[in-house]
């Protein structure tokens, strides 16, 4: 079971942490309609995380709320990409684009997983993720073809975020049992499909993927090595829960 748990933890933590980060835009978004859309998607992400924590609970791990709010930062398995502070909207948009494509492909792959509880979740949330990717693509193309400032900012932010995004595909210790048991086809395969999926949209946005010589994935997140930003996020996210962990919500 360890291999399935590891897969579930890294997915759930990515979604919880990114969902929380994106929710920090609530009330501060660039315009009202986008504020609502981005907040709604952040809620979706937390919901997806909850569904995965629920499976973990059924596999003998702590209850979803306890698991989400009572761990320390170093016990989180998320990629470092998702824990970075929001910065300006260009970074949040680029991260949303890079992560959500990977998320969509991962769940598509998992919708045929031999581990049925996960396949079921994957099929259930398909439409929500489709909207998230729609949203990310439209913003990327719009801002990439906008003013001189928006083009320059999108390109430099893409360059900055790229190696963090490659960190999504950090391999775990259980790649081969996951593949041989037809649970998940693996991070390498996911990265390959991700690159194929994002390339046309990046071209449409008139942006350039950093040249391969500069690729240097930021690893460690999956093994509990994080930036100081995750401490801040976890403390803030769990502040209320930790005051009275036994409260019924």
């Amino acid at each position, binding site marked *: 079971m360890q291999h399935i748990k590891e897969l579930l933890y890294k997915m759930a933590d990515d979604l919880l942490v990114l969902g929380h980060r994106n929710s920090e835009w609530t009330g501060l978004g660039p*315009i009202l*309609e986008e504020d*609502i*859309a981005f907040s*709604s998607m952040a809620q979706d992400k937390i919901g997806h995380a909850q569904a995965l924590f629920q499976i973990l609970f059924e596999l003998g791990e702590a209850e979803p709320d306890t698991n989400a709010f009572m761990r320390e930062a170093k016990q989180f398995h998320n990629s470092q990409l998702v824990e970075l502070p929001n910065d300006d909207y260009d970074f949040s948009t680029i991260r949303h684009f890079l992560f959500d494509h990977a998320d969509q492909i991962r769940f598509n792959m998992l919708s045929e997983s031999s581990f049925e509880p996960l396949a079921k979740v994957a099929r259930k949330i398909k439409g929500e993720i489709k909207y998230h990717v*729609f*949203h990310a693509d*439209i913003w990327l193309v*719009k801002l990439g073809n906008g003013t001189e400032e928006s083009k320059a900012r999108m390109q430099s932010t893409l360059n900055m975020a790229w190696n963090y995004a490659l960190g999504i595909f950090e391999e775990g210790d259980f790649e081969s049992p996951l593949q041989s048991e037809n649970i998940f086809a693996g991070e390498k395969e996911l990265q390959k499909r991700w690159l194929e999926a994002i390339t046309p949209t990046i071209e449409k946005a008139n942006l350039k993927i950093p040249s391969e010589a500069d690729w240097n994935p930021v690893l460690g997140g999956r093994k509990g090595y994080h930036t100081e930003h995750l401490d801040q996020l976890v403390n*803030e996210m769990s502040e209320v829960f930790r005051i009275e962990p036994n409260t019924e919500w």
Partner: protein
Amino acid sequence: MINSLDPRIARENINEENNIAPLTEMDNWETYEVFHQKKRGDQHVHVGIVHAPNTEMAFLFGKEQYGRRGISVNMWVVKTSNVFASDYDDSDIFDTVPEKQYREAGGYKVMSKINKYKKENNI
């Protein structure tokens, strides 16, 4: 510095004196009218307005403002400026004179025939 209870605001170290220029008219996006369809075959019904820079984004926003509760199967967005609207000063064109019974179904004297038919056939 703005000292806010909201940690998101507090960590931005925003100056009290914030010289953000006010929006000019052109900084606002156009409005789009949003229509949604509850089920296939139904009429699309007007549900409201969104601000957007283009139709694709108007759809993105329309979906979240008006379709996120899962009651739509289809959505139209139309630039408000593309909608012809009549003038409220002309709303009297919708007034109609009351003496038009000849155009109403009540003008047909059929009830007596129907009642006769019902009686004959025990309906």
